[in-house]
């Protein structure tokens, strides 16, 4: 009887211990300026969303290029130049389409173009030239970069902040304080 009681008490303790598991608070969305700040990446920052992707060979996938401002920021920009490097031994560049943020959910038509050096570098340019819409403010995704997986492995995409630039309507530069790359795993 004593053994049964001991096991019963032990069972209750184990049940409570395991049933009341405490979860770790892990907020790490690249679009979240607080999560970036916790990692030492200050806003405004250039990031990719999602931060990591796992795909199979020959599959297409999209990385969103996103500018993240502080929640209370009212800084507006009228043009941007982004330089992105990608691992061309693993993935093949396909195309780029303007993001919903930069087109204001297809409400505006900014100048949007890109160049690809044929290897691993992409330059994206976008400017508001309209008289009715000549700036935008806040966090949002600027472009969808579409790739195709060609080889298995793990590598990352990243921005080259030396060549990235955001300007106001008065052609003054908005300093980019942080950047965050993205990881791609190809099975």
């Amino acid at each position, binding site marked *: *009887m004593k053994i049964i*009681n001991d096991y019963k*008490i032990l069972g*209750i*303790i184990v049940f*409570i211990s395991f*049933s*009341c*598991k*405490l*979860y770790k*608070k*892990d*907020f*790490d*969305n690249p*679009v*979240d300026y*607080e*999560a970036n700040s916790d990692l030492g990446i200050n806003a405004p920052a250039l990031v990719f*969303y*999602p931060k990591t992707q796992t795909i199979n060979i020959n599959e297409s996938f999209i990385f*969103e290029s*996103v500018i*993240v401002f502080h*929640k209370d920021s009212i800084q507006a920009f009228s043009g941007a130049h982004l330089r992105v490097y990608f691992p061309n031994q693993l993935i093949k560049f396909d195309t780029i389409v303007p993001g919903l943020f930069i087109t204001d959910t297809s409400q505006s038509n900014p100048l949007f173009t890109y160049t690809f050096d044929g290897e691993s570098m992409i330059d994206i340019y976008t400017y508001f030239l309209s008289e009715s819409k000549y700036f935008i403010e*806040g*966090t*949002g*995704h600027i472009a969808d970069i579409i790739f195709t997986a060609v080889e298995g492995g793990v590598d990352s995409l990243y921005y080259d902040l030396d060549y990235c630039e955001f300007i106001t309507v008065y052609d003054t530069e908005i300093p980019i304080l942080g950047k965050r790359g993205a990881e791609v795993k190809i099975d």
Partner: protein
Amino acid sequence: MHNSMSFILFISFLYSMNQEPTYLVLNHFDQEIPEVEKSLIESFNNSKFEFNESIKNIFHNLDNYDNPASSHMDIIKELGTEHKVNFILLNKIEHNEDRFILDGLLFNTRSGGLIHRRKIDLKQYLDGQINELVMWVGNTLGIQQKDWQENRESILFSDPEEIEYDKTPMGAAIRSLIVPGWGQAYSNKKISSKVWFGVEASLSLAFILSYLNYDTSVTNFLKNSNLYNATDDEKLVSKYRSDAERDWINHIIYSKLAIALASATGTGWVSNSIHAWVFGPRPYTNIYQEWGSSPKLEEG
């Protein structure tokens, strides 16, 4: 109440021939006890008995007197002179359901005072009244036989340790371990049973509610965390993060609360079982003291 009074003149020839004290024995019974006179004669076969039923109620309500020992001095002296005896033995037997009370008194006819008294309250057993009467008379005469004692002890358990009881402390403890308060109810302790059940039920309910809140918080936390990771919308990211943080704090609070309440419930549960065992049903240990084999004499 049938009241029979018989007067027995008992003069021990053995004593009288040796100039030993002589006794007059008077029996007052509320019910007829068959063969009591024959039993006395057989038990003390060296003695002579004479019966006289002409005198009644001479010692009625003795306890009502301020000084029972000296309340009937004159009549005792008169009886002693009349019957030429040194002592008078008065035996009263009254029945009450399955019990009877034997009140025995020994008077000295020279002083008229009460010098010895024995009052016992016993459960009836086979020929119990006769056996107790014989033991009392024998006690006054200094005669005790082993079979009289054995006859009395036949109604008692020879070894109380071997008695198997329907209710045991362990039975109470096990019941309380299954359902708090059951062991106390089993021991006929209704109030403590209700208190234990109420306390444990309250703690258990509080624990269950805390655990359900913890579970809800965890579910919401995981859901909002997934939604947070799955969106690139700045406003939704902020909203889901805020919700997830609130759920995370709640799941910590309810987890601690649930563990504390579970500990309190468990501790209370075990304590309740121990309490049921400690205060569980046990036999009265004064069973021999109540009906002891040693004659208890009260002096008047």
